[in-house]
């Protein structure tokens, strides 16, 4: 399949694998809630960056535009995990 040889297909494959890892492995109770939450959200941030840079082609965009969206990933991930770590379960 020629389609699967395209660089964007490799990105898609990594995204699919990362989703399977978080959904059906890291979500298990065997992991401590904090370890699971931190790893799941770091992976989510990584996945969002892959979509932004490769699917949405921001890696070829003017730098200010790229930085706006990179900042969104950083702030969202930091805010979610920062607030999560304040909870009693953490």
């Amino acid at each position, binding site marked *: 399949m020629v389609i699967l040889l395209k660089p964007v297909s490799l990105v*898609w494959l990594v995204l*699919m694998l990362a989703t399977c890892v978080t959904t059906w492995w890291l979500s298990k109770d065997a992991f401590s809630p904090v370890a699971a939450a931190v790893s799941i959200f770091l992976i*989510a941030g990584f996945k969002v960056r892959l979509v932004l840079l490769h699917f949405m082609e921001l890696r070829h965009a003017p730098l200010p535009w790229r930085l706006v969206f990179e900042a969104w990933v950083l702030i969202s991930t930091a805010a979610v995990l920062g607030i999560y770590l304040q909870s009693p379960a953490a």
Partner: protein
Amino acid sequence: MTELISANHVESRRLPGVEGVWVFIAADMAMFGVLFVSFMLERLENPALFEQSRRALDVNFGGINTLILLTSSWFVCLAVDAAKRDQLPQVPHHLAAAFVCGLAFCASKAFEYTKKLSAGISMLTNDFYMFYYTLTGMHFMHVVAGCVVLGVLWNKSRAGAFTSDNRVGIECGASYWHMVDVLWIVLFPLLYLLR
């Protein structure tokens, strides 16, 4: 030579589609960002209730829906790539596949909502479900709008509307559809996985 290449590289930097769509995307993502933070702050108030309610959600639905949206986005990338290469007959094929994935997401979400509602769980059940229905509902509207966009693009692409010289329309729709994907990538772990 290197300087020449890097100069060309800088010059060739461009946003896909038109800038207005990116302003909309940035604003929409900022709004969802605020909602993510509100959810987390509300969760801080009552973690036990949020955890108990979260456990009633089926992670399989969330996970499969993520796989569906990622695959849909991949097909859209392939469609844009085909337009760039002037492989015109492939554009509608990929867009149709992306559209079917979008419909599959809608069907799966509708099934999940029906299951929850028939179990007596609604927006009024508790704060967690208020967020669950609001956030997933707003996202669902984005998916429905995206499906309409994909349908229109598919129809235009059958007439060979998108080529390497004329691809702004397909790029605008593609960028919007990828944003819908990005939002779900964060929403899913936030609602379904965070213990």
